[in-house]
C-alpha cells in the first residue's frame, strides 16, 4: 500500500507513491488534463470558426437526433453557429479564468498568509483582522458590487474572484506556517543566518506548497463556476467570445425548441467541476501524511 512509503519518511519518493496510488488523482487529473488539452488546441480541434453563422442551418439537432446536418456533430445554435466549436472555444475561456483567477487569488492569499503566520505581531493582527472582515462580507454582495464597479469583461471576472477568494488561501496557509515555524529546519536556517524573507520563501514556502496545490485545485473549480455564472448573466467576456455560461443562456431562451443546446455546456461544466474537486480531494488525501496531520 501507499502508506508504507509514507510512514517511513515524507521524502519525495513517498509523495509520488501516494499520488500514483490514488484513484481520484488519476481520474480527476485525467479529465482535467483532457479539458486542458482541448483548451490548448482549441483552434486546431474546433471543426469550424465558432463565430461563423449559417442562418440557413439554425438550431440543427446533434448528430444522433433525426434531422441533423452532417459536419455539425453537436448541432447549431439559433444563429447557425457550430455548437461543438463554440463548446471547445468556451473551454478555453473557462480554463484561462480558472488558472489565472485561482493563481491570482492564490498569490495574494499565500503571500499574506505566509507573512501573517511567520512574522506574527502587528502584521499577523492586521492581516487576520482583514481576513475576518472579508469573510464576514458575503461573497454574493461583494461580487455584485465588484462587477458593478469594474464593468463586464474577463478582467473583472478574474479580479472579482481574486479579491473575494484570497482569504481561502490566506487562512489555511497562515495556520500551516504557524506549525512549520516551530520545525527544526526553520531554527537551523535562522542559526546559519538566513534572512527572514529568504527563510520564508526559500524554506517555508516549499513546505506549504503541497497544501497550496490542493487549495489551488479547489479554487479552480470555484473560478470555473463563477465565470459560468457571470457569462450566463452577460457580465463576463464580450459576446463575440463563446463561453459555457453564454451558451447556457442562449440555450435557456430556446429551451422548448432545442433542449439539447443547454445540455452540452452544462455537462462540460459539471464534468470539469467534479473532476477538479476529485483531483483536489485526492491530492489532499495523498499529500496529507506528508503534511503530518
Amino acid at each position, binding site marked *: 500500500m501507499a502508506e508504507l512509503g509514507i510512514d517511513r519518511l515524507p521524502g519525495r519518493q513517498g509523495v509520488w507513491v501516494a499520488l500514483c496510488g490514488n484513484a481520484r488523482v488519476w481520474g480527476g487529473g485525467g479529465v482535467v488534463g483532457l479539458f486542458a488539452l482541448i483548451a490548448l488546441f482549441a483552434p486546431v480541434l474546433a471543426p469550424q470558426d465558432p463565430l461563423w453563422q449559417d442562418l440557413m442551418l439554425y438550431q440543427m439537432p446533434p448528430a444522433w437526433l433525426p434531422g441533423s446536418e452532417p459536419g455539425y456533430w453537436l448541432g447549431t445554435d439559433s444563429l447557425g453557429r457550430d455548437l461543438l466549436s463554440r463548446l471547445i472555444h468556451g473551454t478555453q475561456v473557462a480554463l484561462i479564468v480558472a488558472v489565472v483567477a485561482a493563481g491570482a487569488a492564490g498569490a495574494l492569499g499565500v503571500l499574506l498568509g505566509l507573512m501573517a503566520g511567520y512574522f506574527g505581531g502587528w502584521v499577523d493582527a492586521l492581516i487576520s483582522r482583514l481576513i475576518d472582515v472579508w469573510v464576514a462580507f*458575503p461573497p454574493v454582495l461583494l461580487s455584485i458590487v465588484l462587477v458593478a464597479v469594474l464593468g463586464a469583461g474577463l478582467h473583472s471576472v478574474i479580479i472579482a474572484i481574486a479579491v473575494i477568494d484570497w482569504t481561502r488561501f490566506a487562512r489555511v496557509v497562515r495556520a500551516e506556517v504557524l506549525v512549520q515555524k516551530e520545525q527544526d529546519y526553520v531554527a537551523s536556517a535562522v542559526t546559519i543566518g538566513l534572512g527572514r524573507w529568504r527563510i520564508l520563501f526559500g524554506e517555508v514556502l516549499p513546505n506549504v506548497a503541497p497544501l497550496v496545490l490542493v487549495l489551488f485545485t479547489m479554487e479552480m473549480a470555484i473560478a470555473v463556476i463563477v465565470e459560468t455564472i457571470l457569462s450566463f*448573466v452577460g457580465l463576463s467576456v464580450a459576446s463575440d467570445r463563446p463561453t459555457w455560461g453564454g451558451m447556457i443562456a442562449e440555450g435557456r431562451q430556446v*429551451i422548448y425548441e432545442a433542449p439539447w443546446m443547454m445540455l452540452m455546456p452544462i455537462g462540460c*461544466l459539471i464534468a470539469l*467541476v467534479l473532476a477538479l474537486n476529485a483531483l483536489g480531494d485526492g491530492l489532499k488525501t495523498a499529500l496529507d501524511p506528508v503534511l503530518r496531520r
Partner: protein
Amino acid sequence: MPIGFLVNRLVLAIPTLFGVSVVVFVLLRVVPGDPIAMMIPPGAGQEDIDRLRVLYGLDRSIPEQYGIWLGQALTGDFGTSISLRSDVLGLVLQRLPATLELAALALLIAGALATGLAVLGTASRGRWPEAVVDGVTGTVQAIPDFVWGLLFILALGVLMPVLPISGRFDPRIEIDFATGFYLIESLARFDLDTAAMLLRHAILPAVALALPLTAVLARLLKSSLSEAMTQDYVQVAKVRGFGPGRLIVREAMRNALIPTVALSSVQVTFLIGGTVLVERIFSYPGIGNMAIGAVINRDLPLIQGLVLTFAVLFIAINLVADLTYAALNPRVRRG
C-alpha cells in the same frame, strides 16, 4: 430568551450596516462610467444631462452625496431607481416577500432532507447505505445550485413537462392578496388551490437552492451524530436496550444539532446568495433577480438598496442562528 443578548446583537448590527453602506456607496461612485448616460435618449443636450445630474445629486462630492443619502435613508427614503423610475424601498419591499418565501421553503426542504440522510448514514454505519449517503452528499455539494436549477428545467419542465419553470404564479389566475407573502397568505386563508399552484411554481427553484445546503448540513449533522453516538449517555441508553432509531433520534440528535446549527448560519447565507441566480434562471420575481438587472443597468440607487437589504438579511440569519444555538445549548443559555 435572553433579552440583553438580543439587544446587544441588534446594537452591533448598526455599525456593520453603516460600514457596508459606506463601502458600497464609495465603491459605486468611484467607477468610471456615467449612470446618467444610461437613461438619456441619444442626442440629449448637455443642459438636460446637467439637469438630471442635479436631480440625482450626482453633481456633488462623494461625502456630500453620502450625507444626503444617509439622511434620507434614515427617514426611509432610499432614493429613486434610475432604470425602473420608482421608489427603491417600495420596489425592494414589493419583491422581498417572494425571495423570503422561496428561501424559507428551500431551508425547510434542506433541513428535512439533511436530517433524513444524516440519520440514515449514522444508522447504517459501516454498511453500504452509508457509502451511498457519503457519495450522494459529496456529488450534490460539488454542483452549484443554479446548475441543479437548469437540470430541473430541462428534465421536469421540458423533457417531461410536469412542473412550471418560470415565474411565481400562473399569470392567468387573478391574485388579490393583502400581503406579498402569497404562499403563506393562501395557506392562512385555506385557499388550497392557490397554495398548490404557488408551490408548483416554487418547488423547482426551492429544491435547486436546497440541494447544496442539504449536502453540507447532512455531512455536518452526520459527523456530529457519529460523535454523539460514542458519548456515555448514548452508551448507557444502548445498554438499557433502546433500539438504534431511538438512540439516534431521541438521544444523540439534540446534542448533535448544536454544532450543526452553529456552523450552518454561514451556509444559510450562501443559500440567500444563491437566490440571485436561481431566481434569474426561473424568472422568479424576487430581489435576487432584481439585483442582476440593477447591475446590468448600472442602477446605483437600486444596487445600493439591494445590497443593504441582503446585508440586513445576513445579519438577521446570523442572529436567528445564534438564538437557536442558545435555545438548544443550555450552557450558552445560562451563561
